[in-house]
């Protein structure tokens, strides 16, 4: 297999990101000489634990937490499951969960399978979103009951980039003694987060979404929050997660968090400007195209655009010819036969949902790349529309 990142225009950073060269450099010793087990008594292994602890501090600093509140996991999905199942076990008498219709499958499918996993019947309230993908807080307030064990609302949506008011929602949960979890996999590293000031009890993040490798994640657990481990086993992670630490990746994640802190401003200025230029350019040059998601309450790197009357997979494969990488919410790309649950929850018409393309940028994208995509997209859409029985040129 041959992969040359120089050959591609990578605009699929909400799927996964390039591992930063600085991160690789930080990891290398732990993949070669420093192979000791951090739990060992000998200093050859023991010294490695110092590096894990350093990474813990680096992660904590990025999200305004205390390093004691950071537990390393294998991925965002594990963090999500751990948080929800922990809350349900901590409050076995409470049988209600509040979440949204647009969560990532890690939460969506977990909530759909709770009965099987816990052996108890649970009621799940899934909050509706408006046509711009935003949540209505009155609806949320009404959903909170004495029976509610935990609220799980994503910080930012992976498909549209829409940001939810989790700060406020967490405070509302806290007033009622309800635990609050947020899947912040898409938000961490892209927008400033300061958990110290917030009532968020659990937060999930994933390494590979912020230029660390795949296979490492974090669950933040606010100090004082009741916690029941998901993976039983050794005493690692202060007894919160059994299993020998993925040392190299943890060190890499620490370094990636440090870098994210440094590039946060660039992400919210230069990357945002690139995204805006791409978005405006596409919406003006391609007729019958529309933005999915709120224009301003949104991650700086994401734009989700629907090209009506054409199908997403066909668009992506044409883009692939030009080595442009992006994603689609169309049925054919979702692995199922229906278009994205997020776009459907927003009420995006089928004519548009099937032809939605998500461009998600990173600090590695350039002006020249945006120019190239702006040049290639209109003819691709025009060519596919020529084939479409629904397209009537105006």
């Amino acid at each position: 297999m041959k992969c040359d990142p120089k050959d591609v225009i990578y605009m699929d950073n909400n799927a996964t990101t390039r591992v930063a060269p600085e991160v690789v450099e930080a990891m290398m010793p732990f993949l070669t000489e420093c192979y000791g087990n951090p739990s060992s008594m000998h200093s050859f292994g023991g010294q490695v634990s110092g590096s894990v602890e350093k990474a813990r501090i680096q992660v904590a600093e990025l999200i305004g937490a205390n390093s004691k509140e950071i537990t390393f996991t294998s991925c965002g999905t594990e963090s999500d499951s751990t948080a929800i199942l922990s809350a349900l076990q901590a409050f076995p008498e409470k049988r209600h969960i509040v979440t949204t219709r647009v969560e990532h499958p890690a939460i969506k499918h977990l909530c759909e399978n709770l009965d099987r996993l816990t052996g108890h019947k649970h009621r799940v309230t899934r909050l509706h979103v408006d046509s711009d993908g935003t949540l209505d807080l009155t609806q949320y307030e009404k959903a909170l009951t004495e029976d509610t064990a935990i609220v799980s609302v994503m910080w930012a949506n992976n498909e549209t980039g829409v940001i939810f008011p989790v700060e406020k929602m967490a405070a509302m949960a806290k007033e009622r003694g309800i635990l609050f979890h947020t899947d912040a996999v898409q938000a961490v590293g892209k927008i400033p987060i300061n958990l110290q000031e917030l009532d968020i009890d659990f937060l999930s993040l994933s390494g590979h979404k912020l230029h660390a490798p795949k296979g490492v994640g974090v669950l933040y657990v606010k100090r004082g929050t009741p916690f029941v481990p998901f993976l039983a086993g050794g005493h690692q992670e202060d007894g919160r997660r059994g299993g020998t630490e993925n040392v190299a990746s943890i060190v890499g994640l620490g370094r990636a968090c440090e870098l994210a802190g440094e590039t946060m401003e660039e992400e919210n200025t230069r990357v945002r400007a690139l995204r805006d230029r791409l978005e405006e350019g596409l919406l003006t040059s391609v007729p019958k195209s529309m933005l999915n998601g709120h224009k301003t309450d949104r991650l700086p790197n994401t734009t989700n655009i629907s090209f009506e009357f054409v199908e997403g997979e066909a668009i992506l494969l044409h883009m692939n010819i030009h080595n442009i990488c992006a994603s689609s919410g169309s049925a054919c790309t979702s692995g199922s036969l229906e278009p994205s649950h997020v776009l459907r929850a927003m009420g995006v018409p089928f004519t548009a949902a099937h032809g939605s393309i998500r461009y998600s940028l990173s600090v590695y994208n350039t002006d020249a790349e945006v120019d190239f995509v702006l040049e290639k997209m209109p003819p691709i859409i025009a060519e596919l529309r020529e084939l479409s029985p629904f397209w009537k040129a105006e």
Partner: protein
Amino acid sequence: MWEYTDKVQEHFLHPHNVGEIEKPSGIGDVGSLACGDALKLTLKIEDDVIVDAKFKTFGCASAIASSSVLTIMVIGMTVDEAEKLTNDDIADYLGGLPKEKMHCSVMGREALEAAIADYRGVILPMAEGEVVCDCFGVTDLDVIRAIKESDLRSVEEITNFTKAGGGCGKCEDTLRDILQATISGIPVVPLTADGPKRMTTLQKIKKIEEVLEREIKPALKKDGGDIELVDVDGDFVMVSLRGACTSCAKSQTTLKEYVEKKLRELVLDTLIVEEAK
């Protein structure tokens, strides 16, 4: 990412026969925007030979490629030859399709059938079935046909070929029942009614006559025969064979193996066909 053959890639990127024939002899319009794929096939037929075919497709790479090769395959065929084309023929021509994409080849076959039916001025029987999958508007007859034609053995395969069950998934149990019934050869229990379907004699006569006109007569006429409905008494259907059938040694076999089977499949599974003397 899907593993597409070179042939699929080639026909997706450079599709043949794109467009619409003006004043076509037959139009096949299948699928919809909501379903995520749709195909409009137009045929030009002269002396029962397809002399031109064009398509417009909304859908993924395999849907576009299936449409493109479909037009190539049918041009030059007689209508009778084209009618025998199966979805597997389309998939084979493409060097295979990912299993999740087989429904794209089925859509090609459906469009062809619809266009031929339009040319002949008949109504397709498939539309007559009971809708089992509301999400994609798939009928029990569509499902049974796919099971038989492509030798399907699981609900997942039914979904891959027909899309039924690929939405909300509520019809999965029904699909499993249809699958079991079809494989074991037991007539399928009607889906909507509680237990066997109850029909008045008048309803039966109407329905039987429809099926005779649409399905059975055209088939018999090909061999110079014909059939008339004489009477319906309970589950007994009295018919009279005409034309070449009267002197045909195989007429009893035709009556039982073809006419009765068809009527059981499309009208009521308890019907018994007899020749009126």
